[in-house]
């Protein structure tokens, strides 16, 4: 290993060759401020256009100041990170950025969590000496994401997330100079673009330029409406992250406190999306085994691999990017929608209330879920199966708004019947979790044997694309896993090109799976947080008495009392869906 020796603020520093000044400074406890730079360590992605120029430092012998994030250490460098010249430059650059940024912090969605605000505070900016034109763009409200482009500071993080991590490519820098900004083609609304609403742009935006559509007020008004029965479902990933919003360490499980808080907020019933995850396994697992069986019997028409379909960002992605593969993914609805469909039929019946008097709210780590809930095919007579989908962040906001002291809450249990879940339902939150849950059930159903060890370690991990072969008692089942849509695209293109063969593939749109969803507390680039959340999810699984979906007594009861059998007629009606070709086509005139 080559090493380089240099001095930063008169401290001798030794770093590996290739290290940047930013990294070198950090290694000796000097935190050079950054704005555009974001390194997602565990995913091997880095956004460093070197554009904000806030991280400039003085390097002896250089004519101009150097951006610490982009300057490689060289032997014998003398670096000063806080000379008068540096501080004056840094402040002036911040004043410039702020001179083209709306000063509406008090009412901004990012107030208190905004990296620009923090930076301004740290640099002690008290006034902006420059008056002048401010950029104005139209606000864009999609079903999931709001773009307030006036607040864009051109850090390009969203562009990197959308193009490099997700390869959705619906965002690009447009125009030039002062007019330049990140936007979809033709500055069209996100709703008209190929946006999947994965929300990874929102997750990395340092300011309030990108945020989720806020449904908290609407939910509050249904909660106080005496004619409505409001029930809530909470996705597995929420319990592993919600605590962060209240200052708890990443990876703290707050299942019981969350349930308690939801009851205090006035929800009539607090249920668990994990229950619906178990149901998903029953449907999707049965579909997989069915297709597999046909395939093994030599049926050439059967499509393999089967692709999971729980992730709405992924569904949006393949509808616009792989329209020729619409019959490949499982037709099973996502847990959120299965929950809604069962709640507004079976549960409403049981509770003796009319469909239209029941309001289903979901708490999701995800922004695409907001859009999914609004898909017309998931409504009966314009009454949606899921009325509102809130993000983890929105729930935290509601709890804070209701003066609930989250940390002091006593744990409470979910309500029944739709609050009972297995460990298999819990691990849906992690990449690899859905397919592991499916394997637990499919193995036992197919082999009629009991699993000796429920953990499929080979399916776990953080690698973007993983593959493993699971032994189904002599039958090798090849499984592929991808998280992050860029990885999904790569895996799928390999399959299309015949480079790899799988029986089943799990895809989650967000890096890390749902625990890294676009609606989760901001990680500000610290991806170790995602790993801690994932570990918490596996802990929750381990602590569960029942860890296989088909053993969930309430699921068994649901089929006995209501659905009949997995993939049966009623299941098909309530729990399965179909997909649409959303690729844009240009009209041409024959002449």
């Amino acid at each position, binding site marked *: 290993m080559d090493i380089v020796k240099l001095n930063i603020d008169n401290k001798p520093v030794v770093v590996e060759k290739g290290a940047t000044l930013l990294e070198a400074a950090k290694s000796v406890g000097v935190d050079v401020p950054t704005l555009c730079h974001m390194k997602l360590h565990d995913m091997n992605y880095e956004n460093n256009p070197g554009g904000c120029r806030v991280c400039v430092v003085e390097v002896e012998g250089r004519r101009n100041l150097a951006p610490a994030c982009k300057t490689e250490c060289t032997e014998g460098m003398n670096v000063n990170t806080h000379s008068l010249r540096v501080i004056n430059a840094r402040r002036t650059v911040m004043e410039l950025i702020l001179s083209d940024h709306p000063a509406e912090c008090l009412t901004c969605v990012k107030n208190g969590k905004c990296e620009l605000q923090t930076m301004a505070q740290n640099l002690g900016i008290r006034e902006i000496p420059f008056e002048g034109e401010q950029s104005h763009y139209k606000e864009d409200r999609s079903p999931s994401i709001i773009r307030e482009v006036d607040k864009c500071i051109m850090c390009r993080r969203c562009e990197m997330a959308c*193009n490099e991590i997700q390869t959705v*490519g*619906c*965002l*690009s*820098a*447009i*125009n*030039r100079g002062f007019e330049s900004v990140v*936007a*979809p*083609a*033709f500055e069209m609304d996100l709703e008209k*673009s*190929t946006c999947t609403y994965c929300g990874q742009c929102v997750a990395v935006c340092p300011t309030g330029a990108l945020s989720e559509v806020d449904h908290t007020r609407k939910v509050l008004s249904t909660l106080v409406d005496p004619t409505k029965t409001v029930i809530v479902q909470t996705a597995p990933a929420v319990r592993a992250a919600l605590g962060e919003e209240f200052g708890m360490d990443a990876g703290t499980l707050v299942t019981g406190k969350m349930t308690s808080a939801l009851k205090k907020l006035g929800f009539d019933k607090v249920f668990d999306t994990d229950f619906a995850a178990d149901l998903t396994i029953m449907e999707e697992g049965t579909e997989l085994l069915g297709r597999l069986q046909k395939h093994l019997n030599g049926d050439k028409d059967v499509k393999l691999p089967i692709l999971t379909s729980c992730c709405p960002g992924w569904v949006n992605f393949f509808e616009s990017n792989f329209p020729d593969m619409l019959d490949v993914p499982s037709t099973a609805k996502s847990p959120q929608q299965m929950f809604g469909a069962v709640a507004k039929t079976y549960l409403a019946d049981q509770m003796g209330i009319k469909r239209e008097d029941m309001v289903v709210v979901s708490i999701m780590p995800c922004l695409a879920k907001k859009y999914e809930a609004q898909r017309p095919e998931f409504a009966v007579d314009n009454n949606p199966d899921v009325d509102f989908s809130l993000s983890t962040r929105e729930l935290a906001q509601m709890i804070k708004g209701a003066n609930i002291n989250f940390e002091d809450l006593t744990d409470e249990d979910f309500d029944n019947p739709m609050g009972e879940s297995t460990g298999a339902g819990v691990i849906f939150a992690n990449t690899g979790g859905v397919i592991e849950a499916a394997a637990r059930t499919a193995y036992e159903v197919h082999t009629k044997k009991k699993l000796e060890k429920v953990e499929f370690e080979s399916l776990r991990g953080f690698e973007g694309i993983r593959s493993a072969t699971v032994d189904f008692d002599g039958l090798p089942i090849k499984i592929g896993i991808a998280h992050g849509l860029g990885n999904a695209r790569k895996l799928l293109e390999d399959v299309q090109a015949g480079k790899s063969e799988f029986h089943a593939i799990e895809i989650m749109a967000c890096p890390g799976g749902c625990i890294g969803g676009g609606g989760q507390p901001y990680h500000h680039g610290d991806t170790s947080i995602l790993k801690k959340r994932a570990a918490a999810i596996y802990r929750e699984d381990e602590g569960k008495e029942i860890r296989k979906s088909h053993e969930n007594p309430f699921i068994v009861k649901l089929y006995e009392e209501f659905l009949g059998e997995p993939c049966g007629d009623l299941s098909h009606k309530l729990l399965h869906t179909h997909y649409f070709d959303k690729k*844009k086509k*240009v*009209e*041409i*005139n*024959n*002449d």
Partner: protein
Amino acid sequence: MAEIKLAESKVQELKEVCKKFDYDKGELINVLHAAQEIFGYLPAEVQEIVADELNVNIAHVYGVVTFYSFFTMIPKGEHPISICMGTACYVRGAEKVLDEFKRLLDVKVGETTPDGKFSVSSLRCVGACGLAPVVTVGEKVYGRVAPEGVKDILAEYN
């Protein structure tokens, strides 16, 4: 944005161009030049086709189109007027000439008159500094233009 339907023959021509460039993403700018030559400008639909053929995102194509001032999404007028705003022309009064064109035609720089007859743009140095200030209308070059001469130039095309 008004939606338009493109003529099939021109679309075919554009697709041929993309093929000639071997559908190479790196040739995007050359392809856009050819597309602008074929259609006269680069409406959204043309950019969609280019994106499709070269297998790049439409947002990227739009990002490139809006970066370069040579590319336009507005159809040029029948008689495109360009006023040189190079330094040589500037110090010899090009700004006043430009103002006069804008005033008489009631358009801003980069716009086309409602009847589609004239469009006004400024450009940087046509390299005829000896003739400063310089105005071009289509292919024709007018040298040493004074603000008072603007209406006479326009009259030639009315």
